[in-house]
């Protein structure tokens, strides 16, 4: 304020010039500063309330799009999961129709992420993870002991006679079956596909497309290569020595000749549908001293204990054979 101002001094009854001392000036400025700060705060608050900074605007736009995409996919995901459930059911029905038995649930059957929780009764304890982990390990070991003991009796005889035996006896699956999905009907009483009566199934079936490679399951000599239309159809018999023979039936074509020496893993023929067979598959038999034995006991070079368990379950449950 440019004009000089005066104040009435009641004591001296005269007008004093108002002079602002430095202290008062500073105080005034300070008060002014504080006041404006306060106002700034108020403005800022209102401004922020009404308007967005550019960063905020970008973020809001980001969230909107993220939300949009997410909602869309989430909704659609529900549909997809429903369709998947339906597809799994259809698949099960196909299994029932073709194999005439209940399908073994795949590892993906129990709902939700992660599959079956076999150890759920252990949930809820402190150190749950540790306990579950230990139980799982014990399970694995138990299974390993079981499979070991089964093969052990066979192996103990062989181990006495060293390497050649171990290379010769059947020890792998006769077709590529790493995921065990080609496992079909196993050894023993099974339903005949046409007669529908319970009959002894002398070997194990593997479903596979016509032309799939068939392997010799142990070293040996090809004893028989026979083309025929009846019963076993085109089949090969391998003599492994030590009392063991293996039979590979319903073949589409041969890859070996009689008298030929073969090693474990050699391709000896190809899967077919010849002879009395309702579908392309390999019928595989193991004979010990001319008696049929369960081929499932002779895959120990190929399967872990877990895989063996699963295969055994599938082979057992698969009710109807293809031959």
């Amino acid at each position, binding site marked *: 304020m440019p*004009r*000089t*101002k*005066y*104040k*009435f001094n009641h004591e001296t009854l005269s*007008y004093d010039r*108002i002079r602002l001392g430095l202290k*008062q000036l500073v105080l005034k400025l300070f008060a*002014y500063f504080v*006041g*404006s700060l306060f*106002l*700034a705060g108020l*403005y*800022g608050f209102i*401004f922020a309330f009404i308007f967005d*900074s550019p*960063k*905020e605007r970008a*973020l*809001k736009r*980001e*969230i909107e*799009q*993220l939300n949009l*995409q*997410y909602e869309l*996919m989430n909704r*659609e*995901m529900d549909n*997809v*999961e429903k*369709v*998947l459930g339906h*597809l*799994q059911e*259809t*698949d099960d029905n*196909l*299994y029932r129709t*073709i*194999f005439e038995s209940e399908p073994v649930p*795949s*590892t*993906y059957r129990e709902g939700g992420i992660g599959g079956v929780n076999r150890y759920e009764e252990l949930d809820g304890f402190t150190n749950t993870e540790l306990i579950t982990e230990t139980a799982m390990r014990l399970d694995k070991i138990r299974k390993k002991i079981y499979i070991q003991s089964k093969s052990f009796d066979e192996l103990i005889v062989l181990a006495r006679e060293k390497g050649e035996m171990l290379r010769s006896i059947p020890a792998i699956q006769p077709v590529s079956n790493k*995921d065990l*999905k*080609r496992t079909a009907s196993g050894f023993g009483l099974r339903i005949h596909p046409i*007669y529908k*009566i319970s009959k002894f199934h002398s070997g194990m079936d593997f*479903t*596979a497309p016509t032309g799939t490679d068939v392997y010799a399951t142990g070293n040996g000599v090809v004893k028989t290569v026979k083309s025929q*239309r009846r*019963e076993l159809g085109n089949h090969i018999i391998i003599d492994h020595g030590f009392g063991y023979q293996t039979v590979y039936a319903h073949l589409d074509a041969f890859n070996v000749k009689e008298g030929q020496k073969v090693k474990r893993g050699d391709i000896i023929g190809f899967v077919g549908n010849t*002879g009395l067979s*309702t*579908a*392309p*598959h390999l019928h595989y038999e193991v004979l010990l001293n001319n008696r049929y034995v369960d081929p499932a006991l002779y895959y120990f070079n190929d399967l872990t204990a877990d895989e063996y368990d699963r295969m055994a379950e599938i082979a057992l449950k698969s009710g109807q054979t293809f031959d």
Partner: protein
Amino acid sequence: MPKGKKYILDKGNLQFLQHRSTWGEKLIRISLFFGVSLMLTAAYGFVFDRLFGSPKEELLNQRVEVMKLRYSLLERKIDYSSEVLADLRATDNASYRSILDLPQIPASIEEGGSGGTFKFGDLTGYMNTDMMVAVRSKFEDLRTETNIQYNSLNEITAKVEEWKDMWEHLPYIRPVNVIMPLGEGIRFREHHPVLGTPRWHFGQDFRCPIGTEVYATGAGTVYATGNGNDGYGNKVTIEHGYGYTSLYAHLSNWVVKPGQKVKRGDMIGHSGNTGVSTGPHLHYQINLFGEHVNPLSYFADNLTEEEYFQMLDYLTSPSH
């Protein structure tokens, strides 16, 4: 501001007049105050924003983080479903497609160009574009795979029906409950037992007493019945479809009519000794597209009599 009234010196009148700010002056003062404070606000806001970011921003950032978490959970769901689908596909390939002679479905679909109408361009320009594009394309792939699997299962289901139907029609059992067949199917005979001349024998004989029940060996339609005076005596022929016909000769009687539909296991007549025959037996033939085939290739001789009856029971039961 010192309290009390203020006075200014009126130089004209040499008087002290109370100074009252005019409205104009007050207005100027106030607006100046607001103006400066606005400028200060802007300055403070600028500095503050640079240094700290507003609380609103914090909030929004948190929301973005929550969305990212949701996306990762969604991604896990998608991954899991993809694995389920892959498992289904592998089962189908190994178990069903190989049996039904259908081509295998390959494990992976081509990269990129997954079809569909989704424009990934809509997602560009965002901070989290990469994440959205990754999850969205996984999702589109899942949808495509699901479609493929759906169509695949339809194809398989249709083929299974055909397959089952075919296997019900093919002549695949023994026509009589007799274990001992005579001879070995199709063969050339130097001396026909009755005619004496060399002749081909095109079927399989079963020695059985007159009146033994004869069964249709596969589902089909009766084509012809009766005595055609061709040496076969009383015979029945059945058409099974898929190129197959079966023939049952030297019967003593028949119990079906031409055009009648039969199922495997249905009795069609009784064996006998009619026609050119040295003794009571059934002559059984199978023709595939007109060519004679060996009936012994169509059944195994390993059913006992009892098992045969069990089989008949099943085949002729109403639920079948």
